[in-house]
């Protein structure tokens, strides 16, 4: 037993060691994962590295350098570099073959992050970079989850092995009432299995929940990154526009033309105004490389708020006038910036569109503001990204809303053909007093009524709410697939385990029962052999076995022990095989010498049975050697007394004597039952244990039934 336990301990320690090694390995692997760079960062690098090559049109070198860079950046899905002059693709790479260039032009949408390529202050191209979705990138959580599941299931495995081991050991121990195949054994086994299944289900549940949390964390990062990219682009747009308008308006030429326009607008000389206007447009048109040209809509106001110049039709002057107060006053104070997006319906297409406007103060020679320039922002990659370019994955999108939640930007799923999007409530719009910098992932219905994961942020440049969102169904698609997989495996595994165990149990029980029956038959046959030699009937050992069983049961002995007694009883006189026939079958009285031999039969029996590890045979040994000992110590072969005599032998003594008295033999008639009982009572405290005699007397009814049932054939 100790050896076996040591072996078990060794196995457990070994398993724990394996777990530790696996944990260490996966933890090390997880720590090796580097932080993921964003599309913006990669695009910025490419923009910087490629600018000189694109400028020099050294496309061979560009190709070599880009391919080297892509090899080092494993997460790149697509890179497209477009020349700004010809708008041709000068370099393209696609991991999956999508959107490759054909005849110099891109065959697909320029998704991903778009950045301008600038060389020596000139816009010369743009680069679009698309990385693998972050949901697919990070392996860290995968490793952590794997470690978690391995450790958990190894733990469950060890625990359940210990439970089963204990149960099996218990079922075969001497003192246990939980025999293999017994009802208790089955219940305990089923309990163990239920614990195992329960733990597996609980573990599976926690694992799935952990998986869901991990996915949600990643989505939060993803949405946050998207907002950060947008904010960075808007900041860049603002800075670029500031540079352009600074360069445009702070020249003597511009100031001269603007002054003339102020004058001619006021004094109504239309011809001069037209001429000056044309000159102004000429100045503006010099920045056509940046998308700012004479066809663009803009308004210039003097410091009184009077419109000096109004150009183009797409700028809704009235709307701007209504909403510019703060921006106008800000510009008079020298602050440039973007206006909140304005959503309007196009009269021709009857569709909603959104526009961004930029406001810039016009300074005179001594640095005082003497005009305010409101300009439409050209929708060019270098200046302003159309917000729909921030759409990501299957359902992800970025929205701009006002503080009431009204969607000002394009949306991915417009409600009608007018491109109307409606409202998109969010944390900021729901609770205007909330801390706008403290944004967190929320789950609620979007403008379509679809449950979505939403992250909101306040953008100070646009004075608007930025909402980054993704459908819940898409976010959790992998989670549900995984969940279904885990549930399926758990159900299959549990069903298989239960059925297999029950089947093994049934088969084992049958085999065990058969074995027990077979053992009992053999023991009975051995008993018969001895009885036959002693001229006793076969029914003697049957009856006395039953008597012993009745006495033991009524005396309060354990049923398993009683069963063992019943099986061992037939071997009580097995030692008579060792007594010569002439003594055993002598018709008359035995001589003292013959008695000496006769009284050796308990020892012969003990020697025949031997010292066995088997519980049944150990009991048979005890019975064989002590069933002629007496309570008062006057018995043989050793003359032991009282409780020194095994209780099995004490019971067998009563049963054997009672049946011997009440049975007919060749040398005597059968006693009346009352006489036999009277004799046994009279021997209480002498030959027999008093309490057992009392039990015997109380059991006479059952004993009589057995006697009647197993009568000797005449």
């Amino acid at each position, binding site marked *: 037993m100790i050896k076996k336990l040591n072996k078990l301990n060794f196995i457990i320690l070994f398993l724990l060691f394996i777990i530790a090694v696996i944990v260490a390995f996966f933890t090390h692997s997880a720590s090796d994962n580097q932080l993921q760079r964003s599309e913006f960062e990669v695009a910025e690098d490419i923009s910087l590295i490629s600018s000189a090559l694109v400028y020099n*049109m*050294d496309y061979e070198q560009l190709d070599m350098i880009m391919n080297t860079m892509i090899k080092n950046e494993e997460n790149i899905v697509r890179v497209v570099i477009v*020349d700004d*002059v*010809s708008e041709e693709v000068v370099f393209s790479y696609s991991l999956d073959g999508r959107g490759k260039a054909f005849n110099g032009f891109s065959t697909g949408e320029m998704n991903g992050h778009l950045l301008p390529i600038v060389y020596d202050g000139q816009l010369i191209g743009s680069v679009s970079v698309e990385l693998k979705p972050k949901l697919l990138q990070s392996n860290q959580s995968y490793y952590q989850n794997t470690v978690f599941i391995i450790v958990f299931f190894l733990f469950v495995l060890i625990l359940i092995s210990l439970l089963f081991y204990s149960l099996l050991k218990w079922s075969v121990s001497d003192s246990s009432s939980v025999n293999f195949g017994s009802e208790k054994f089955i219940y305990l086994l089923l309990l163990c299995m239920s614990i195992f299944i329960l733990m597996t289900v609980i573990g599976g549940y926690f694992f799935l929940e952990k998986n869901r949390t991990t996915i949600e964390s990643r989505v939060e990062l993803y949405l946050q990154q998207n907002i950060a990219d947008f904010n960075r682009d808007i900041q860049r747009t603002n800075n670029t526009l500031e540079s352009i308008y600074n360069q445009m308006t702070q020249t003597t030429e511009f100031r001269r033309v603007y002054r003339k326009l102020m004058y001619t607008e006021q004094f109504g000389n239309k011809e001069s105004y037209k001429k000056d206007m044309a000159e102004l447009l*000429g100045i503006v048109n010099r920045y056509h490389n940046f998308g700012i040209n004479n066809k663009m809509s803009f308004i210039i106001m003097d410091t009184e708020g009077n419109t000096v110049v109004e150009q183009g039709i797409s700028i809704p002057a009235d709307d701007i006038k209504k909403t510019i107060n703060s921006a106008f006053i800000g510009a008079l104070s020298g602050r440039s910036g973007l206006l909140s997006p304005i959503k309007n319906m196009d009269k021709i297409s009857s569709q909603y569109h959104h526009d961004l406007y930029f406001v810039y103060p016009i300074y005179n020679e001594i640095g005082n503001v003497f005009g305010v320039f409101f300009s439409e922002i050209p929708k060019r990659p270098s200046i302003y990204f159309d917000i729909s370019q921030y759409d990501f994955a299957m359902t992800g999108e970025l929205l701009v809303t006002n503080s009431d939640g009204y969607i000002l930007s394009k949306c991915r799923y417009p409600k009608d053909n007018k491109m109307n999007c409606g409202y998109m409530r969010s944390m900021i719009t729901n609770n205007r007093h909330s801390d706008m910098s403290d944004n967190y992932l929320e789950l609620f219905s979007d403008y379509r009524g679809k449950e979505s994961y939403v992250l909101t942020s306040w953008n100070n440049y646009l004075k608007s709410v930025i909402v980054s969102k993704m459908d819940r169904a898409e976010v959790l698609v992998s989670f549900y697939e995984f969940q279904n997989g885990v549930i399926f495996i758990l159900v299959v595994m549990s069903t298989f385990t239960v059925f297999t165990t029950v089947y093994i149990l049934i088969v084992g029980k049958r085999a065990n029962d058969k074995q027990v029956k077979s053992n009992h038959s053999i023991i009975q046959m051995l008993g018969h052999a001895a009885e036959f030699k002693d001229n006793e009937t076969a029914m003697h050992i049957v009856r006395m076995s039953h008597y012993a069983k009745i006495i033991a049961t009524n005396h309060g002995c354990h049923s398993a022990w009683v069963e063992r007694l019943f099986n061992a009883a037939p071997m009580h006189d097995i030692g008579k095989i060792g007594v010569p026939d002439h003594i055993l079958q002598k018709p008359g009285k035995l001589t003292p010498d013959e008695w000496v031999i006769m009284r050796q039969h308990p020892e012969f029996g003990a020697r025949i049975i031997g010292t066995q590890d088997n519980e049944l045979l150990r009991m048979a040994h005890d019975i064989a050697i002590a069933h002629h000992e007496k309570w008062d110590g006057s018995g043989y072969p050793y003359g032991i007394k009282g409780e020194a005599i095994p209780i099995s032998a004490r019971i067998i003594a009563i049963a054997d004597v009672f049946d011997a008295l009440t049975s007919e033999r060749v040398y005597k008639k059968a006693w009346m039952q009352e006489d036999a009982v009277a004799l046994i009572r009279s021997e209480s405290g002498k030959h027999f244990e008093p309490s057992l005699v009392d039990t015997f007397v109380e059991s006479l009814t059952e004993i009589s039934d057995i006697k009647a049932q197993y009568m000797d054939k005449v």
Partner: protein
Amino acid sequence: MRYFLYSVFIYFIFICKASGELLDILDVGLMAQGRPPYFSLPTATEPATGLYIDILDEIGREVGVKFRYRFIPQPRIRHLMNHYRIDVEPGIAEEWRLDSLELKNSIYSHSFLTSSEAIVYNPHHFKTPPSKNTFNTLEPCSILGFSDLDLEKGSQGENNKVLTEMQLLKMIQHQRCDFAVFPEDVIKPKLHAFGLMATKSIAVFDLKLRFTDRHSVLLPKINKAIEKMVTTGLMNEMINKYRGLSD
């Protein structure tokens, strides 16, 4: 009818004025690193100088246009001209601009200069002075954006493209490539400094001003101005100034 005539007149005046405004400044594309004696980069105190610049300034004065000089890489000059972002490329032989867009978009002035081209090589690379045929099996190098001459195209070696003439000369000096073709005007002053040698002239080209076809209206005036410069001897005077009297 009278109103119609007035309208036509006003429209005509407008068109002329608009054209005049458009032709006011013409962007001239010149190699980013300069190419003396044809043109040199401006300094902090001095404007750009050179033969082409003097000639263009004189033509500008005659025609009434202003040329604005932009120094950009050679391939980009051609690229920008293909897309009408640059108006003029000076000193170009028609044989050198054969891309489809160039053939479609380009118009040329009369020739104002001849350019004699020679092969430049490293004498340490050859045991005996090489002949023109020797170079057929050798490895040339040239500037990115320059048209390859027949000799370079016919060469069996790989043509190494570099960005500047300085890189080109260094490449030959360090025997990274075997030869390059240069205009004699450009290479003569530099041969000694780099320890290189040049063959005799292998080809002579008529150099012209290349314009985008948007300036076809202007071309006769340009040609007239060139003819005047040649007739008056001003052209020769300018060429001699930069080439030297011996030429």
